[in-house]
């Protein structure tokens, strides 16, 4: 990869694109439920009732990312806010369709998260903006999901272009309307680009989160324009090599591999193509276990937990003589976690269900999905069902003891003397519980369960 970037100017320009689904989870739901269009919708994580996705209308009502449901539930009555339980199985399957359609439009496609995909156009002649528009149209027609496309000479610029494409469409006046939905930063003159950078907050740049943003702002760097004019060596010294690379990428110098790149806020993906094809179940299990445990490690490193895991493995689509098999699945975890045992356990169990003998698998990947800061989530003590970390009996023993203690206390001091913390907080003062079930408001799994397919009125 370094080799290629060192000579990028000699051998012809590579243009990157970042394509993503707008409000992916909400859009996946709306595909099968057109009555949800135009309405404020939130998708709630199944274990702790946080808003992990919001429609534009819900954002306009002021619902914040990861905001607990109990804080916004009043909007259900006052503004028609609709809450849906996360349907990870559906979203994962729709995501695989999305990636498959997107990848038709460029020689190289690299899925980055459940709803984002990088494309690389090297030596592709033709109007890329038109290709971007055709891609949007095709995805909307074939899958029913709206997307945004950003182009740039580096991945960081492509991601920024994607953000601009969205803002231009959603917030009239933020950027020229010509940049709506599809934005190509590589086509701008130096003046235009400078103007665009001047109108963009540094917090919108890939990899610049709240903490770094606050530090930069304290140092007087508020816009992308100011950041781009900073001295790279100083940035490296005061912050990190990664931030320096971000700066160089914003200047149009590709120098970041996806491995070094910042993890998406909502997902962490670990995947690799195999040197030689893997044909055995054990081989896939070994690879997937390694990726799952690396993903769990990244989770812990960044202080996050995940509430679902998507995994896939696939034969090589380039080896057309090979029989093709590309299974993938998204597994919701009963509890948000960064525990390697739970994540590896769930992944391996899924591989056993999906693997078929006789195929030459060329690539596998594991993705941690729906991340949030560890410790911020309500951790429901999953007292009543098997936890997924069945590797030792301790969790179950502990669970059993807790149950006993709870029962004893409730018997002695009256019903509901002791309740789950999440129940107490959610209900506020004294009213009844609010967030009861994990699957209360989940839509059907339209594409993975035959008994839950779309019903159409005849």
């Amino acid at each position: 990869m370094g080799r290629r970037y060192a000579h990028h100017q000699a051998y012809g320009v590579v243009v990157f694109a970042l394509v993503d689904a707008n409000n992916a989870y909400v859009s996946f739901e709306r595909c099968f439920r057109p009555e949800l269009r135009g309405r404020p919708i939130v998708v709630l994580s199944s274990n702790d009732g946080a808003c992990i996705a919001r429609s534009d209308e819900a954002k306009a009502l002021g619902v914040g990312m990861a905001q607990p449901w109990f804080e916004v539930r009043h909007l259900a009555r006052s503004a028609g806010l609709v809450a849906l339980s996360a349907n990870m199985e559906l979203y994962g399957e729709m995501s695989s369709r999305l990636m498959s359609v997107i990848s038709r439009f460029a020689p190289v496609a690299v899925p980055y998260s459940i709803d984002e995909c990088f494309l690389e156009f090297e030596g592709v002649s033709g109007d890329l903006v038109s290709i971007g528009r055709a891609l949007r149209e095709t995805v909307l027609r074939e899958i029913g999901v709206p997307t945004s496309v950003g182009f740039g000479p580096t991945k960081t610029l492509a991601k920024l272009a994607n953000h601009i494409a969205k803002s231009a469409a959603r917030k009239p006046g933020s950027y020229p309307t010509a940049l709506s939905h599809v934005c190509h930063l590589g086509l701008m003159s130096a003046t235009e680009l400078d103007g665009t950078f001047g109108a963009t907050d540094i917090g919108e740049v890939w990899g610049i989160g709240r903490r770094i943003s606050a530090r930069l702002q304290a140092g007087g760097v508020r816009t992308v324009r100011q950041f781009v004019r900073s001295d790279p060596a100083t940035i490296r010294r005061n912050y990190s090599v990664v931030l320096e690379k971000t700066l160089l990428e914003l200047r149009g110098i590709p120098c970041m591999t996806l491995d070094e790149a910042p993890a998406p806020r909502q997902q962490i993906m670990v995947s690799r193509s195999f040197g030689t094809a893997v044909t055995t179940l054990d081989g896939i299990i070994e690879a997937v276990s390694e990726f799952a445990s690396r993903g769990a490690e990244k989770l812990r490193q960044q202080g996050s937990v995940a509430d679902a895991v998507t995994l896939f493995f696939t034969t090589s689509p380039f080896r057309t003589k090979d029989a093709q098999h590309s299974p993938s699945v998204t597994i919701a975890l009963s509890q948000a976690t960064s525990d390697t045992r739970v994540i590896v356990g769930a992944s391996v169990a899924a591989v056993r269900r999906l693997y078929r003998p006789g195929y030459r698998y060329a690539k596998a990947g594991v993705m941690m999905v729906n991340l949030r800061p560890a410790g911020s989530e309500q951790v429901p003590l999953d007292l009543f069902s098997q936890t997924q970390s069945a590797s030792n009996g301790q969790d179950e023993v502990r669970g059993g003891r807790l149950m006993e203690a709870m029962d004893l206390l409730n018997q002695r001091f009256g019903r509901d003397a002791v309740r789950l913390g999440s129940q107490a907080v959610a209900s506020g003062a004294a009213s009844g519980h609010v967030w009861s079930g994990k699957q209360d408001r989940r839509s059907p799994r339209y594409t993975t369960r035959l008994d839950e397919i779309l019903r159409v009125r005849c």
Partner: protein
Amino acid sequence: MLCGAYTVRMSSPESLPNGAQVGSASGASTRLSSRTRVAAGFGSPAEDATVHRIDLNEALIDHPDATFIARADGDAMRGAGIDSGDVLLVDRARTPMHGNLVLAVVHGEIICRRLYSLNGQTRLDAASIGASSVQITEEAPLEVWGVVTHIIKHTV
């Protein structure tokens, strides 16, 4: 005329011994391996021939990424051969044409109807007595969700 046992099993070109010939002009016998392809009146040797059992996914579905499965609920399309409970294969990548059975979004609901689109008039027709058509106008434009390509009926 060939003698000796030979198998008709075909194999991919890589596994063929180079220059394997059968029944040469001189009539000399030639060793036949079980993987030698027989090049005499049994079909073109150029045929690539790994044989697979028929797979309904491959056979019935042209656009896998854009094909969804739905269940018919109601009797308004019995005249078109769709009974309540039938499974429908729906392709969103196909361009809807006059006469197609389609899923369409009408007043926020997904319904199944037959598309009529001729001479500037567009409507969605039901297929049973008493069921009314949905007129398509500028205020209520046509939105096709997908084209029904196959109807699958349970018989046992």
